[in-house]
């Protein structure tokens, strides 16, 4: 029976050629969910946001330059979607309250841990959106100030001052509560 031998190398090559866009995207999913949860504070909205971001990323894949950071590109898509879609929908529904259902996420510890997590969620949701995203990008996602500013689309100085204000507010909120 005739078999074609070079299949493996050609498959490998093809994967490399496309920068394996899909696998890189799969690779990013855990971080996307983390960022989405931080932005929305609610697990249902977070996964909706991830879904929208995946759809947009796949539709606009040609706009991503292979060799540049896919994570930054995705974060940018996500924060834009959050502002345009999620936040707008919430305003219309007028139900922008901390989502208690979302607090179950990641809460595996005892009562004490759950309370602490809920406290952090509430404190984060009290921040203005632009301060919350700055805190998330730098302190949770580990972006540099420059990367974060590029994702948000603002000067580094602006990003820095949002970060400082957001961080100070969080420290006050969390330390007062503790």
């Amino acid at each position: 029976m005739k078999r074609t031998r070079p299949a493996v190398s050609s498959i490998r090559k093809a994967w490399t050629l496309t920068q394996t866009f899909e696998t890189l995207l799969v690779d990013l999913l855990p971080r996307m969910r983390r960022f989405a949860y931080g932005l929305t504070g609610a697990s249902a909205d977070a996964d909706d946001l991830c879904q929208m971001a995946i759809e947009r990323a796949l539709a606009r894949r040609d706009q991503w330059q292979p060799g540049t950071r896919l994570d930054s590109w995705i974060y940018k898509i996500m924060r834009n979607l959050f502002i345009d879609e999620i936040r707008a929908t919430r305003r219309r529904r007028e139900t922008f309250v901390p989502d208690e259902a979302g607090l179950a996420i990641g809460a595996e510890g005892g009562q004490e841990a759950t309370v602490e997590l809920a406290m952090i969620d509430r404190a984060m949701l009290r921040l203005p959106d632009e301060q919350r995203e700055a805190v998330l990008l730098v302190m949770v996602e580990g972006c540099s100030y420059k990367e974060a500013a590029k994702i948000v689309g603002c000067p580094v100085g602006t990003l820095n001052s949002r970060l400082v204000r957001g961080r100070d507010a969080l420290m006050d909120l969390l330390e007062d509560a503790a």
Partner: protein
Amino acid sequence: MTVTPEMIAAFADGELGADERRRVEAAIAADPELAAQLERHRRLKGLLAARYAPIAAEPVPDRLLTLIAQSAHAETGSGEVVSMAQARARRSLAPMVRRWLPVAGPALAASLVLAIWQPWQSAQPSGYADSALATVLESRLVAEQPTNADPRILLSFQARDGSVCRAWRSTADGGIACRDGMGWKVTRRFAGSPEADREYRQAGSDADILAVAQEMAKDGAMDAQAERSARAAGWLNLR
């Protein structure tokens, strides 16, 4: 030199250059008030990590994985502009994925998340699986393994010489082992590349392993029942 709160924050975020960093370090060592400021930053960062890290560790919902998998398997774009490279990749990859997906699908979707972490490099000289790996290969069915299994069995198949082989992935390596009278002979091993930049992992490692498996296989991958029978037969030559 005066050290501002902004500098302490930038220090905590790793944003300072070497010179500034050394100066801030010295100032912090000399001033308990500055040290306390830094401690506040670190505590907040720790709180945030404790809050958000578990979310990244959760299993990703199937619907998100499916969304991406559908795109990876689509042979033609839906009216979008597809580059030559993408078109070629889709043409060459799709048949393999289609052929293996019915059996390997669930494992593939899950293992993509677990496993595409590192580029895979050279095949090493063959030997036999060590006892930890051999135990897993000998005992665990694809259908039985926990979602976070490490090593994880990707699939089992019968090679053209009749022997039963199994493809596995762990965080450290992966490959294909075939059972013979002595144990699990590792016919292909893909080792992780330690110097790889974690930000830019690119190789499709599971695809690489599956591609080799496809080359070796007589037919397709075993289904759950065939795998169970093979285990009952001690994984030895079915011919």
